[in-house]
């Protein structure tokens, strides 16, 4: 029987009731008295010089309160970038200003030029169409390699180049890597594209600014994964509002997947406009606007080489990647192709020598930043694709070549040649589990059945590793992060024994209100419904860095554990007093404090009451009250890993790929709520399969976004996906956080694209199309069919 509560129990989610009954409260559901509405005038060209903005006609229209242009923000800062990457030449990256409204030039289709605020959304929309913008269109740079060519148009004239940085890692290993390649028995090379994606959380972004002229207090309601980060960035760098006069609230948020980490110009706009107009100002993105302005993900072009011995031992890896930054640097953009990508190139293997080169490039496209996995899917995809290709070239089974190179269980902790130290893992165990749950032994029979129906069946297998639990602050500080990456929790015990846990993490689908309560309830031995989880409001949560990078339980959960431990320690002192016993003899079990070896005890609730009604209480030794805060800064990343298998059928007549089955064997360490963990894997798999088969953001050569709506950008739908087989039983608990957890939010999206592509190539190879060794994602019927034709 599975546990029915506490750590490890598949408890139903408490947040579901409000979401299922229409009682969620998302940002767009918030309407403040006197609220006005903002609509942005956005660039319709990818690159141009603004000659003139004529707002007169718009300003005269009914209901219009004001039309803003960059002149209204002349004394404000630009949206800052949170990570400084240093290039191979020792120079800092080129870092452009990102103004709230375009100054002088527009740099991508969707760039905000002006904004109309009016009494109603319709009036604002009508007036926005009446703003006349005279733009001298300039040649756009869309292709990264073209952007680096001599004489290419410059996205930022003042930077003198479209190269943001040229990063080498590990630079000191470069000569040794080259030497290993020169001596290798075999080198497999693959050039591939990690396709540009639009995150498309189902809730479009929204922001409501409010200002109290009497107190000077600003409030921003926004669709954010990290309200404290927004408060810090917007307050300190953009609008010069001290944090104690700025409250940021991220209420129910309808998915993020990275795209709601970043500080966007619209947030700063509504905050400032509310002050200027003395009215709350609301902006809600349309989906079309979201496509144009939400930070996109991926968009890497890579050449990877793998040097092997003739029996398939990996000897060295060398890569060159061009990574698209878009037109400006989004909050975490520079870190994604570098520290979240290069450090994972060892994968699950013992490859001794690795060199990663990344050129980050400005183009006339929307900024690119973290999207579910963020750098780790790009690393996994290239590595697991080149391994598959190498296995085929050397005639070695793809599972066997991986096993041959696995880091073995007795080699942990394992220092990789790319800086990180894996604390724990067992890659053979997850591979064994995968072989079982995917029924790989039965593949040949299924392939024959498919063949009878005229379909080519293929099997793709791969492994993945990721670095989660972001991150040790002193380490990331050395790597260029401009923030700490700890997490925080305040546990407030009420007089009658209930608890409120205020966390700096933010839940936007992950179910923290349920799983965090399980942790605290388990530690004290009380029912979960005595524990309330509060998140998303800077006014009532301690400074925390928010939710991304599969960090919430590993880092935020650890802060909760630490704060709860402090509560328990103090409560034991109070209990010792009440029981007239030594503190060392007090035990806490099932919500009761007992004196060891006796039948004397006092209930949790009595201790809480004593803390707040301290009549019989050692006031000279202990303060009254029961409330504690902890900040947890991890000592290492966590390293979830696993093995995935995909079976596909390819229709040779049309090139259409159908995913017949997908199995995932993951090692997430300990698991607090297996139901939620499995749901996270399912969602990640859907996004990874979507990337592999369906999704791709496409700009034409002039910088027009061709995939600007759900009509043109293929989102995975229910009939595109199978039921998934997932398993997380091969757990090697994390060795350095108190819960032994590793994080599960991104694994599915990281591990699944290579499995799908490996499966399609396998199907084509087995079907006699031996000339097809690679197809770039998304593997649409047109691409697959074209590849099959010689």
């Amino acid at each position: 029987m599975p546990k029915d509560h506490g750590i490890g129990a598949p408890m139903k989610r408490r947040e579901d009731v409000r979401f299922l009954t229409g009682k969620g409260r998302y940002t767009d559901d918030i309407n403040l008295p006197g609220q006005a509405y903002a609509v942005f005038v956005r660039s319709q060209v990818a690159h141009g010089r603004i000659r003139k903005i004529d707002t007169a006609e718009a300003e005269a229209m009914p209901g219009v309160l004001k039309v803003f242009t960059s002149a209204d923000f002349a004394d404000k800062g630009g949206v800052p970038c949170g990570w400084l990457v240093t290039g191979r030449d020792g120079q800092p990256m080129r870092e452009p200003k990102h103004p709230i409204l375009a100054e002088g030039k527009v740099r991508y289709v969707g760039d905000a030029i002006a904004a109309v605020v009016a009494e109603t959304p319709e009036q604002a929309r009508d007036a926005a169409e009446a703003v006349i913008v005279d733009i001298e269109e300039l040649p756009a740079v869309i292709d990264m390699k073209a952007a680096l060519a001599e004489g290419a148009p410059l996205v930022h004239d003042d930077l003198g180049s479209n190269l943001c940085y040229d990063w080498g890692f590990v630079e000191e290993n470069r000569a040794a890597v080259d030497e290993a390649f020169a001596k290798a028995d075999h080198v497999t090379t693959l050039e591939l594209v990690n396709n540009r994606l639009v995150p498309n959380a189902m809730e479009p972004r929204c922001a409501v600014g409010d200002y109290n002229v009497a107190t000077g207090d600003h409030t921003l309601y926004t669709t954010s994964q990290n309200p404290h980060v927004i408060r810090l960035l917007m307050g300190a760098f953009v609008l010069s509002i001290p944090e104690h006069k700025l409250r940021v609230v991220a209420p129910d948020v309808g998915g993020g997947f990275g795209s709601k980490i970043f500080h966007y110009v619209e947030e700063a706009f509504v905050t400032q406009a509310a002050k200027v107009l003395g009215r709350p100002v609301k902006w809600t993105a349309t989906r079309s606007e979201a496509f144009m302005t939400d930070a996109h993900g991926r968009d890497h072009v890579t050449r990877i080489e793998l040097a092997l011995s003739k029996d398939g031992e990996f000897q060295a890896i060398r890569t060159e990647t061009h990574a698209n930054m878009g037109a400006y640097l989004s909050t975490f953009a520079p870190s994604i192709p570098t520290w979240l990508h290069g450090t994972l190139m060892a994968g699950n293997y013992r490859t001794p020598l690795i060199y990663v080169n990344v050129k980050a490039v400005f183009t006339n496209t929307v900024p690119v930043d973290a999207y579910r996995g963020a750098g780790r899917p790009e690393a996994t995809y290239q590595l697991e694709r080149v391994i598959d290709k190498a296995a085929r070239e050397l005639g070695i089974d793809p599972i066997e070549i991986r096993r041959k190179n696995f880091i073995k269980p007795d080699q942990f902790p394992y220092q990789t040649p790319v800086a990180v130290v894996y604390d724990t893992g067992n890659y053979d165990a997850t591979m064994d589990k995968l072989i079982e749950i995917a029924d790989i032994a039965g593949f040949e029979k299924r392939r024959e059945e498919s063949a009878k129906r005229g379909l080519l069946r293929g099997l793709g297998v791969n492994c993945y590793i990721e670095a989660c639990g972001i991150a040790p602050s002193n380490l990331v500080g050395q790597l260029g992060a401009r923030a700490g990456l700890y997490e925080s929790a305040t546990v407030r015990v009420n007089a009658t024994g209930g608890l409120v846990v205020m966390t700096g993490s933010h839940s936007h689908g992950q179910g923290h209100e349920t799983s965090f309560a399980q942790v605290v309830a388990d530690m004290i031995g009380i029912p979960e419904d005595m524990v309330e989880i509060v998140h998303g409001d800077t006014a009532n949560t301690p400074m925390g860095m928010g939710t991304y990078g599969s960090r919430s339980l590993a880092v935020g959960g650890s802060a909760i554990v630490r704060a709860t431990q402090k509560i328990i320690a103090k409560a034991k002192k109070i209990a010792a007093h009440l029981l007239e016993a030594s503190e060392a003899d007090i035990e806490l079990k099932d919500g009761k404090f007992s004196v060891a070896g006796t039948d004397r005890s006092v209930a949790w609730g009595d201790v809480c009451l004593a803390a707040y009604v301290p009549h019989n209480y050692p006031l000279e030794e202990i303060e009254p009250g029961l409330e504690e805060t902890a900040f947890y800064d991890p000592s290492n990343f966590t390293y979830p890993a696993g093995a995935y298998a995909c079976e596909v059928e390819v229709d040779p007549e049309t090139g259409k790929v159908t995913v017949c089955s997908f199995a995932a064997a993951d090692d997430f360490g300990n698991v607090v709520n297996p139901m939620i963990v499995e749901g996270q894997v399912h969602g990640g798999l859907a996004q990874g399969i979507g990337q592999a088969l369906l999704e791709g953001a496409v700009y034409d050569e002039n910088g027009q976004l061709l995939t600007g709506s759900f009509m043109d950008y293929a989102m995975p739908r229910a009939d595109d996906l199978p039921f998934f087989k997932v398993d997380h039983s091969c757990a090697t608990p994390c060795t350095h956080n108190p819960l032994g957890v590793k994080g599960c939010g991104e694994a599915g999206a990281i591990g699944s694209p290579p499995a799908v592509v490996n499966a399609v190539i396998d199907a084509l190879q087995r079907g006699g199309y031996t000339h097809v060794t690679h197809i770039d994602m998304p593997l649409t019927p047109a691409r697959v069919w074209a590849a099959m034709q010689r």
Partner: protein
Amino acid sequence: MPQVTMTVNGRQVMREVEGRTLLVQFLREGLGLTGTHVGCDTSQCGACVVHVDGKAVKSCTMLAAEADGAEVTTIEGVTPADGGMNPVQKAFQDHHGLQCGFCTPGMVMTATALLAENPRPSPQEIRDALEGNICRCTGYHNIVKAILAASGQDVSALAAE
């Protein structure tokens, strides 16, 4: 401005609306029924599905004026008045058929309409019926499972482990 009259969740409402007002705006902004969501502007995502005269309809594809005289039910209207949940809502919770919750009201309304027409749908029939509802969180696995369970079918074989 034209005046529209309709019955929403059993209560007759009468309002003046601009001709271009969509039914979803009328429900959200006019009546404060914020359980119905707007996830796109091309009638693709299904976050705004409500029932109009018993049929599942994307309320962004219909003008409020077109619903004049109609019987409209939203997610609030299928929720029991006592604060509990109906069997479809319960099945979504029991089988973790939602994460961020944004697409969820539309999913529940589509599922409810499906089950009214087809009380024991197959997994493929469910997936086909959800063609017009996009979820970015769940990968649909648990949504399909929840709808199967809501129809009284055994889903134990679909346990993830």
